[in-house]
Each structure stands twice: as C-alpha cells, then as structure tokens.
C-alpha cells in the first residue's frame, strides 16, 4: 500500500536530509514524499490520501500547528508529527487543544531513528485516528478492492435489498455502505439516503459496526451514545437518530461494510430485528460475490475465445 507523507521544513537541506533518512530507514514501506518549505505550499499539498504530516514548528508564514489544523480538515486520519528544534515547553499548545500531535526533538541523540520508528507505527496502525481500526484492516481493504462494485446490475440488485430493509423496518432511509481506507461510501440507498454523499470515516457510525464481534450494531439514540454524541447534530440533520447495521462478510470472514436502516426517532431494535437485517446483509454479500464470480467466468470465456 502506498503511503503519502508530507514533510515540511523551511530549511531545504534539513528537509531533504530528513526525507532521505526516512526513505532509507523505512525502505520496506512504499512511501511517497511531498515536501514544502512554507505553510501555504504545505497546505496546497494536503489531500485525503495524506497519511502523515511531519513538520517544523516555526514556518515563515505561520506555524506547524496551523498546518496540523488544516490537515484535520483535509485529511482527518493523517498522523501529525512535530519534528522541530523548538522546545515543547515554549510552545503554546492551547491553540490546538484537543487534537493530538506527536513530538520528536531534532536534537534527539537518536537522530531520525525515533522519527522513523514513530512514522512507521503511525502509518501502519493509523494511531492518530479518532476511531478504532480492525486488526485485519489491510486484508479487509484488499478484499474490498477485489470486488467490482460498479456493475449496474449488481447495484440494482442491492437497491432492492435496501428497499426490502426499509419496508420491513418502516423507515425512510436505508443503505448499504462500504468502509474504505479513509471514507464511507454508499453502494445502494433507499429514500432520502439517496441524497447522501461519501463521508469521512471519522464521522461514520458504520466504522464502529465493522468492529462488532457479533456483526450487528444497534444505536438507539445517537445523542445518548458516547461514540456519536459530539457528531449527533450532523447525524440528526441527516435524519439519523436511531441506527441498526449488519455487516456484509466475505467468504473469507472479512467485513467490507454494513447494511443499515435509520430512524429519525429514537427506537429500540429486537433480537429478531437484528437477525432479519443480518439475513439481508448475508444475501447482499452473496450477490456481490456471485457477481464477482460471474465477471471472472465471463473474463475466462473471453480469453478462451
């Protein structure tokens, strides 16, 4: 997997030296470095694919904290590391209160070794994300990418499943979502959910559903749940107060996302409700895998001819 790293330092020689050392000490990783010498040029390099930002504190047109603030919007999952000559005791951290930044002193007797260890851990396990990541995340993402999820026939079939789910639970919104590396995307939607667009993973309820041991998750009221209460205003605006999600699990046991129903009132879901949605999620996954096999067979036949 390619990891995009943004390295920011006004001192060009120091910047290039840091990049060279990281590239050499983390040779086993597929790293792509972008570099910048100012806050403005660094901000222009931030994308949703940025995995980590390594920055000096003092920049000619601002501070490393300004950049970290911008990164929280552009790439909320990115790990941020202050790699600086500035003494941490002299930095006013209240400006960035609540967000997390790693600190490595440039005068460390270990040189870039500590920085590379920390960067390695940060990008491998996404340690600065605000949500837990499954232990088998790499395999899970590989499984997700192995399916052709753009087929119109498949999407039409999945739409019918969200229709069935919405009808059964008497709700206005239902969807089948996939959890990508940094985002939640909607494969099939019913009702008002058809207006929804891709969202950051940190704002998604489903990123917690894919961690559930029993592969189903109920949220009776997002305003009362400690995981979602700080994001509840946005969720309520989307018409989501109660939630039930059941995971789509591949034949290899990996979760690609859930089938969900949403209610704009708080509500309880019974064990029978959970079992029904789980059955529908299994049907949805069967459809995805069957389409994948059909594509594969069609490809083989095409080659044979």
């Amino acid at each position, binding site marked *: 997997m390619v990891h995009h790293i943004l390295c920011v330092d006004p001192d060009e020689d120091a910047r290039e030296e840091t990049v060279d050392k990281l590239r050499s000490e983390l040779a086993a990783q597929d790293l792509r470095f972008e570099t910048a010498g100012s806050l403005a040029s660094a901000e222009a390099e931030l994308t949703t694919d940025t995995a980590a930002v390594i920055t000096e504190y003092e920049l000619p047109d601002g501070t490393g904290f300004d950049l970290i603030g911008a990164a929280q919007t552009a790439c909320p999952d990115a790990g941020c590391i202050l790699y600086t000559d500035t003494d*941490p005791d002299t930095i006013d951290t209240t400006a960035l209160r*609540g967000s*997390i930044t790693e*600190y490595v002193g440039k005068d460390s007797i270990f040189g870039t070794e500590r920085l590379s260890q920390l960067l390695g851990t940060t990008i491998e396990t996404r340690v*600065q994300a605000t949500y837990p990541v499954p232990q088998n995340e790499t395999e899970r993402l590989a499984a997700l990418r192995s399916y052709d999820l753009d087929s119109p026939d498949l999407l039409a079939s999945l739409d019918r499943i969200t229709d069935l789910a919405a009808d059964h639970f008497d709700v206005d919104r239902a969807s089948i979502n996939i959890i990508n590396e940094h985002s939640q995307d909607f494969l099939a939607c019913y009702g008002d959910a058809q207006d929804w667009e891709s969202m950051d993973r940190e704002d998604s309820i489903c990123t917690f559903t894919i961690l559930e041991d029993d592969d189903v998750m109920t949220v009776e009221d997002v305003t009362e749940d400690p995981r979602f209460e700080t994001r509840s205003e946005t969720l309520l605006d989307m018409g989501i107060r109660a939630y039930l999600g059941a995971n789509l699990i591949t034949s290899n046991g990996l979760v690609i996302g859930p089938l969900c129903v949403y209610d704009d009132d708080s509500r309880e879901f019974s064990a029978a409700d959970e079992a029904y949605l789980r059955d529908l999620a299994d049907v949805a996954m069967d459809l995805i895998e069957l389409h994948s096999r059909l594509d594969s067979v069609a490809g083989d036949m095409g080659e044979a001819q």
Partner: protein
Amino acid sequence: MTTETDGGYEFADGIPINPIDPGNIVMVAGPALSRAEDVARTLVADGSDNGEGMLYISTNMTAEKLLNACRQTHSPFDDTQMGVIDCSGQDAAQSVLGERVKYVSTQSDLTGIGMKFSALYEGLYGVVDQGRVRTGLISLSSLSMYVDLRALFQFAQTVSGRIDSAGGLGVFAIDPTTHETKAVNTLSQVADGRIEVRESENGSGDGELRVRGLPDQPSGWQSFTLSE
C-alpha cells in the same frame, strides 16, 4: 519494527502477573475502592527494581504525592529514571525530580500532555538500559471528564503508538463504573490486554486481580499485595 528491548517487563512478587512483552499496552480496570489505580502505579514503579524508565501521566496526584506513593510501596525507590506529566491542575511546585516533571495546567489540553509525554519519553529512552520505559496513564477516567470519548480514544491510541514503537510497556488505569460500556469497549481497543481489579472477597491481601487477553498468564482471580 525491531527495538532494542527484548525480555518481558517483570513485576514484584506480590503481583501475580507473569512478565509482559515489550510493546504491550494493558488496561487496569477496577472501581475506585478496588485499588486499581494503586495496581497501575505499582506495575510501573516495579521498573525501579530493574533499572527501567518510569513515566507517569498523572491526572489526580501531584508529582510529589505520586513520588511519595511510589516510595511507600517500593523501598528503596530509585527516582532518577522517573518522569511525570503532572496534569493535576494544582500549583506547580519545585520537585526533586527537577526537569523530569512537566506541568500541564488543564487535563483538556491533550495536545500539551501528548507533546510533553513524547519529549520526556525521548529523554528517558536515551538514558535507560536498552530503552526500557514503563508508562502509567492514571487515569483515563479522569481525562474523560474533560474531553469527549473520541478525543480521548485518539489520545490513548497515540500514546500507545509511541509506547509500541519504542518497545515500552503501557499501563492505563480506568474505572469502568464511571463509563458506559460502549465507551469502555471503545477505549479498550487501544490495549492488548486487560487486568481487572476487585476488592478481596475473603479479606486476604490488598485485593484480587485477573488478567485477560495476554498470553501465558495465571487464569482466574488472584490475590495481590502492593507493599513489599
């Protein structure tokens, strides 16, 4: 990633826990009366017997109170490789630990706590044998009164990443009775294992603990004693 550390982190005879491998994070969970925080503090202070670094993020105790508590359970206690992030919010006093105490005025300043933790960790890592450092975060429950769950999770996970990448041992205290189960389950995702602490049923020892999720550990509830 390989680190310089190799053998497991060992504990005093009164604590019935086998050595824990470098890079692991354990959650020490128990209600206020169970002495869970004392267990967490001791698991870190036991590093004194092995010449290891000891680093505390202390939310309730000042650095001085924490040092005294360590001295009461460990005699002699070598504080030369001890560091404290004192976020008790009480006035910063001159400490015998000198530069190895860093103050953060409010527990809501997770940025400051995290950066000062990183700086102190770096300093200790450089001076202790094989970079062996034990970290105690006491407690997560106290921090949760100042920040929301997602910020706290992000903070705990970042601290655990630092410990993991350096081959350290992390001990995070939590009082599960003060949180919803969903919050405890979410925070538990940052830990490799869990040590549950309760009051002793028959009055023996200082309480009982049981280890979950770590390999090669005693099963079931075990009596422990904290003082030597």
